[in-house]
C-alpha cells in the first residue's frame, strides 16, 4: 500500500472510531430509522392516503400523484428536505464542531505534525473525515428509503442515492465555515454557534432574495399590464378618432374619457415606477451577495429536480391555470383577467409564485453548485493556509 493510502486509511479509521464513540451518531441513526418507519406506514391509493390500516379520503390520490412519485416526494421533501437538511445537519454540526479545535489542541496536533505527512494533506484529509458523519448517516437513510420505495411503490430508482452527495455537499458548505472558525478560535462552542449563525444568515439572504424576486416578478407583470392597457387604450383612441371623422356625436366624449383614463393610468404607473425600480435594484444587490455565498436550500432542491418530483407539481399548475382561465371567462376576476391587465399584483399571486419558481428552477446547476463549491474552496484554502502557517 502506498504511504498516502496508509496514512489516509489510518485517519479515516480513526474518524470512524471517533464516530462510533459518539452517542450523537447513534441518536441520529435511531431517529433516521424512526423517520423511515414513519414513511413505511404512510401510503396512497385511489381514494386518498392510508396510515397503517386507516384510510383518509382525499383529492390527493393515485389519480393525481402516482405511488412512486408520492414516496419520492416524501423522501426528497420530508426525509431529505427536512430531516437530513435541517435536523440531522444541526446534530451533525454539534457532533463535528469539535473536530478542528480538538485536532489543533496542544499535545494532540504535535503527534500528527511530527509524522511524515505534509500539513496540507493532513489538514485536507482531516477535513474530509469530518464529512464522514453526514455521509454515513445519509447513506444508511437513503439505502433504507431506496428499499422502502421499491417495496411499497415498485420503483427501484437508483437516483435516490443522489441524496448522499447532495446532502454531504450541503453539510460541507457549513462544515468549511465551522472548520475555519474552529481554527481561528480553537473553541468548539464558538465554532458551532457562529456556524449556525452563518447558516441563519444564508437562510435570511435566501429568503429575502426569494421575496424580492417575487416582488420583482409582480412588478414585471404590473409593467406588462400597463403596457397592455396602454396598447388597448391606444387602439380605443384610434377607434374613437375614426368615429369622430365619421361624425359620430358620442365619439368625442368617449375619446375624452379614454384619454383621461390613459392619463390616470400613466400617473399611476409613474407613481409606482420608483418602487419597482428600487425592488429590482435591491434584488440585483442581494442576488450578487447570494452568488458569493453557498446555496444550501437550492443545492438541496436539486435533488427534487433530479428525481422529477416537479412533474407532478407542473401537472397541478396546469390544472390551476385551466381553472383560472375558466374563471376569467365567467367574469369572476374582471374584464381584463387572463390578459395580464392587473396593475396591482400581490406577491402571493399564484402566477407570481409560479414564475418566480420557474426563474429559480431555471438557475443552472453550475451556478448553484459551482458558486457554492467556489465559496467552500476559498474558505478551505484560507483555513489550510492558516493551519500550514501556524506554530503549535
Amino acid at each position, binding site marked *: 500500500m502506498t504511504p498516502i493510502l496508509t496514512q489516509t486509511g*489510518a485517519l479515516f479509521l480513526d474518524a470512524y472510531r471517533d464516530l*462510533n464513540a459518539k452517542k450523537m451518531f447513534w441518536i441520529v441513526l435511531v431517529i433516521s430509522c424512526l423517520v423511515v418507519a414513519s414513511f413505511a406506514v404512510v401510503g396512497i391509493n385511489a381514494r386518498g392516503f392510508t396510515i397503517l390500516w386507516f384510510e383518509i379520503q382525499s383529492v390527493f390520490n393515485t389519480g393525481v400523484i402516482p405511488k412512486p412519485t408520492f414516496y419520492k416526494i416524501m423522501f426528497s421533501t420530508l426525509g431529505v428536505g427536512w430531516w437530513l437538511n435541517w435536523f440531522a445537519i444541526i446534530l451533525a454540526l454539534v457532533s463535528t464542531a469539535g473536530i478542528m479545535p480538538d485536532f489543533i489542541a*496542544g499535545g494532540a496536533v504535535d503527534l500528527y505534525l511530527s509524522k511524515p505527512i505534509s500539513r496540507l494533506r493532513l489538514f485536507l484529509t482531516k477535513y474530509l473525515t469530518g464529512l464522514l458523519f453526514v455521509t454515513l448517516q445519509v447513506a444508511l437513510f437513503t439505502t433504507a428509503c431506496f428499499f422502502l420505495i421499491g417495496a411499497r411503490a415498485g420503483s427501484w430508482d437508483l437516483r435516490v442515492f443522489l441524496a448522499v452527495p447532495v446532502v454531504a455537499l450541503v453539510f460541507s458548505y457549513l462544515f468549511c465555515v465551522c472548520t475555519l472558525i474552529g481554527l481561528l478560535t480553537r473553541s468548539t462552542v464558538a465554532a458551532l454557534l457562529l456556524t449556525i449563525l452563518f447558516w441563519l444568515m444564508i437562510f435570511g439572504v435566501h429568503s429575502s432574495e426569494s421575496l424580492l424576486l417575487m416582488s420583482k416578478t409582480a412588478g414585471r407583470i404590473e409593467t406588462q399590464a400597463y403596457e397592455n392597457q396602454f396598447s388597448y387604450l391606444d387602439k380605443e383612441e384610434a377607434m374613437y378618432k375614426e368615429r369622430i371623422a365619421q361624425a359620430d356625436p358620442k365619439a368625442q366624449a368617449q375619446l375624452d374619457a379614454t384619454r383621461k383614463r390613459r392619463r390616470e393610468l400613466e400617473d399611476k404607473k409613474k407613481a409606482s415606477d420608483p418602487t419597482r425600480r428600487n425592488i429590482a435594484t435591491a434584488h440585483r444587490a442581494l442576488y450578487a451577495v447570494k452568488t458569493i455565498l453557498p446555496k444550501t436550500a437550492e443545492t438541496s432542491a436539486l435533488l427534487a429536480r433530479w428525481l422529477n418530483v416537479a412533474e407532478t407539481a407542473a401537472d397541478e399548475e396546469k390544472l390551476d391555470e385551466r381553472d383560472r382561465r375558466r374563471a376569467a371567462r365567467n367574469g369572476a376576476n374582471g374584464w381584463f383577467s387572463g390578459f395580464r391587465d392587473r396593475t396591482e399584483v400581490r406577491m402571493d399571486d399564484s402566477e407570481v409564485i409560479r414564475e418566480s419558481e420557474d426563474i429559480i428552477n431555471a438557475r443552472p446547476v453550475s451556478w448553484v453548485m459551482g458558486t457554492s463549491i467556489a465559496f467552500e474552496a476559498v474558505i478551505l484554502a484560507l483555513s489550510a493556509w492558516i493551519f500550514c502557517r501556524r506554530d503549535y
Partner: protein
Amino acid sequence: MPAAAANAADSLAIDLRDVAKRYKGRVDALKGIEMHVRRGEIFGLLGPNGAGKSILVKIIMTIVRPTRCVGSILGRPIGHKPTLGRAGYLPENHRFPRYLTGRQVIEFFGGLANVDRPTRKRRAAELLELVGMRTDADRKVGTYSKGMAQRIGLAQALVNDPDLILLDEPTDGVDPVGRRDIRDVLVRLRAQGKTVFINSHLLSELEMICDRVAILVAGRVARQGTLNDLTLARQRYEIEVSTNGQSTRPLRETLGATVQPVTMPSPPPINPPIPPAFPLVGAAPPPPPRSIERGTLPTGQWIEIEGSLIRVGITDAAAIQPLIDRLRIDGAIVQRVQLVRPSLEDLFIEAVAADPANGRAPKGGI
C-alpha cells in the same frame, strides 16, 4: 561539502548549526542554537523553564516553523517530512484520542508514520510488552493514569522502529519503577544503535543514562559536551577541618591564600515548608546570608573558604598534600578530604546563574 565534513555530518543524528525563533513582539525564543547529537548516543537537553527546549524539539519535528534554520536530522535538512518517518516523537503533555485503546493508539500513529498494517499490528504487540502495558492494552486511553499514558506514548514513538527518538519529558508522571523501566528501554535502544534525544527536568535521570548533554539558557546553548568533559574542569577537593584544633590563625593565613570576603544568599531549603493557610504574625525571618572568602592560592588555583570547609580547584591528589601538611602543622584537625565531582545539577545551576539575564555572577568556585 568536503569528504571529511560529509563524514562528520553523516555521523550526526541531529546537526544544528544556526537555529533561531522569534515570535511576534520581537520575543527571541531561540537565539542561534548550535548543537550536535551523534548517532547511537543518548543526548540530554536541559534548561530552566522558558529556555526554549520544547520549541527546539518542536522545530526539529516541524511543529514550529523556525525564523532561521541551518541544520539537519539524519542527514536531511530540517523540515524534510519523509525523514520524519525515521524519527519517533513523544511530546510533553500529549493528548491521545480518548476513544482509542492503548493498542489502537500505537497502531493509529504507526499508520500515520507509514507503517503497513501487518507490521504495525506486530510492532504494537511487541511494544506493549516492552513498555509493560500488555494487560491494559485494550482499555480506552481515557481510563489510563498519567504514567500509563506515558508508557503508551513511548510505545507509539517507537512503532516505526525509528533511528532517532525525541522524548519531551518522558518520565513526567511516571512512578520510580516506571522511570527505571523507561531508562532501561532507552539504554536498550542505544545498544541497538538508536539515537535518543531527551528533554527533561529530571537531572538525576539524565545523569544516569546520558552520554552527552546540552544546557539551554535563555535561548542559547550555555554548555554542551559529555558529562566527563563538562565536569572535569569543575572538579575540586574539599577539605573539612575541625574548629576544635589548636590553630589560632585563620585558615587563609595558614594556606597563604589571597582572598576577599563574598556574601552569598542562603541556599533554598530542600523541602520548602507548605505555606500556612493563615500566615502567622511574626513568622520566622529568612536564614542569614552565607559568608564566604574567595580568592587564589600562591600556586594560582582558586580557593573558597566557608567556615571550616575549604574548597580548592585542584584535581590531583599529589597537589593537595602540601595544603593538608600546612593545616596539620598549624594544628588543625583534618576531618575529611574528598575529591568532589560536580553533579549535573551543579552544572545546570551554574549555567543558569551565569546567564546575564538572571542578573547573577557565576560562582567562581564550582
